[in-house]
């Protein structure tokens, strides 16, 4: 069945590797994604922090377009976009007055019928198909699965996994052959939208997260959100100024990790686009590739 695809503004450019790796993994696992035509920005934090109605109406337009394309489900890989789409859907379902106000603004036939999924949910729900395509299991790779905030909170909006003790990202990483570590900061906030406007807070929060991942023995942090990625990867240089030695912690999108295990090329996965090099992980994947390739031959 077709799944609607809402890339969101970050995946359109600065996090293009999240888009290319997701598309490659989806194709390999037999998922058919169809982009929502002419989608608009979800409004993100600047929408909901300043105008509640706008924060519902902007994602509602996208959900209405998805209905027009006869899509029953939409995946939003950016955790912030996911949160805005899922929140809009939830609030309009709970509040009929709000729903009729929004449909009046949209001027479209809209029934609020589209289900909204995040990337961890999509991959977890397709685990059997993914496992079948894993040719290069990432054995010996220890990863810290980082959920951050909006994949699992608030529970009334998300509801696909346990709010305080989720496991879907770990399940996906295990399917890719990697070993998830136990750590404390996987549900803590990275500073989200404050990357530009309050960078000091982002550095403080990122440092706590990465130091905890490292202490738990992780060789990489796996994320499912372009803002988490940027705050932990791009800002790692600034974080290093406050630590005894650089953390050098590669930050991978979960689709890049799965893609590596599927033997998808690092160019398609966009692994060269990160500030902290992912080479140590790629090397592991390549070493493991050899026996698998021999088996096939």
């Amino acid at each position, binding site marked *: 069945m077709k799944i609607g695809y809402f890339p969101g*503004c*970050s995946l*359109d*450019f*600065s*996090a*293009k590797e999240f888009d290319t790796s997701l598309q490659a993994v989806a194709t390999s696992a037999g998922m058919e994604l169809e982009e929502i035509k*002419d*989608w*608009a*920005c979800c*409004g*993100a*934090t*600047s*929408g*909901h*922090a*300043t*105008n*509640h*109605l*706008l*924060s519902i*109406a*902007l994602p509602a*337009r996208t959900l209405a377009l998805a209905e027009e394309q006869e899509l029953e489900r939409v995946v939003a890989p950016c955790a912030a976009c996911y949160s805005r789409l899922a929140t809009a859907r939830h609030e309009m379902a709970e509040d009929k007055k709000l729903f009729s*106000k929004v449909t009046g*603004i*949209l001027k479209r036939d809209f029934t609020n019928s589209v289900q909204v999924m995040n990337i961890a949910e999509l991959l977890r729900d397709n685990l059997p198909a993914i496992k079948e395509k894993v040719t290069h299991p990432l054995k010996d790779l220890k990863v810290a699965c980082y959920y*951050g*905030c*909006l994949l*699992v*909170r*608030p*529970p009334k909006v998300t509801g696909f996994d346990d*709010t*305080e003790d989720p496991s879907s990202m770990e399940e996906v990483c295990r399917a890719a052959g990697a070993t998830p570590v136990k750590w404390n900061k996987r*549900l*803590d*906030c990275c*500073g*989200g*939208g*404050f990357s*530009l*406007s*309050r*960078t000091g*807070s982002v550095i403080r*929060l990122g440092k706590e997260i990465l130091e905890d991942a490292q202490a738990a023995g992780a060789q990489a942090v796996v994320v499912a959100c372009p803002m988490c990625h940027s705050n932990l990867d*791009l800002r790692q240089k600034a974080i290093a100024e406050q630590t005894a030695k650089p953390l050098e912690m590669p930050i991978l999108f979960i689709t890049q990790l799965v893609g590596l295990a599927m033997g998808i090329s690092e160019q398609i996965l966009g692994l*060269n*686009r*990160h*500030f902290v090099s992912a080479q140590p992980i790629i090397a592991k994947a390549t070493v493991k590739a050899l026996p698998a390739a021999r088996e096939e031959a």
Partner: protein
Amino acid sequence: MEKETASGESENTSASAHHGHAEESFRSEVRQAIGLNPAKCYQCGKCSAGCPMASEMTLMPHEMIRLVQLDRRDRLMQDESMWLCLTCETCTARCPNGFDPARMLDGLREMSLRAHGENAPRRIQAFHSSFLDQIRSHGRVFEFGLVFAYKMRSGALFDDVLNAPGMYFRGKLKLTPHTIDGVDDVRRIFDACMAEEER
């Protein structure tokens, strides 16, 4: 409750105009505007205990809720703390009495803007304005344009300048915007939502 909407007009003038409205307390105004009952909070402090920004706030989340309960509009609306909330939703997920502090802070920020309050830190305000301008102009956020507009508004001209070449060479910086076909649709949604707010 419905009659309370009559006070909406005074909200647009200034915060001080509210002192003439003895009948309507700040807490009932918040309840009306946001749809949450502040009395639901029994001040256990769980929200502040898990808040990642509490250490940077002069007023912690449970203290902000308390000020609403006590009708302390001026004290709350002069403080920047509400703007430091990242909406990570930890407070809302953990509230033992089913209150929604994150939603309340969103609503308070909106009320502050409507009353032309100036409690938002300049950079955060500049970021939000620049971000929304991008959506209105293109239907999507054009990141390079966002950073440029933000720098002009906030005065943070040289922040991150050293990261720009790194971003460019990693293909993370696009220099020309894409405007969606339905940008007029998006502008109409903006106008309708702003008009609704004025009512």
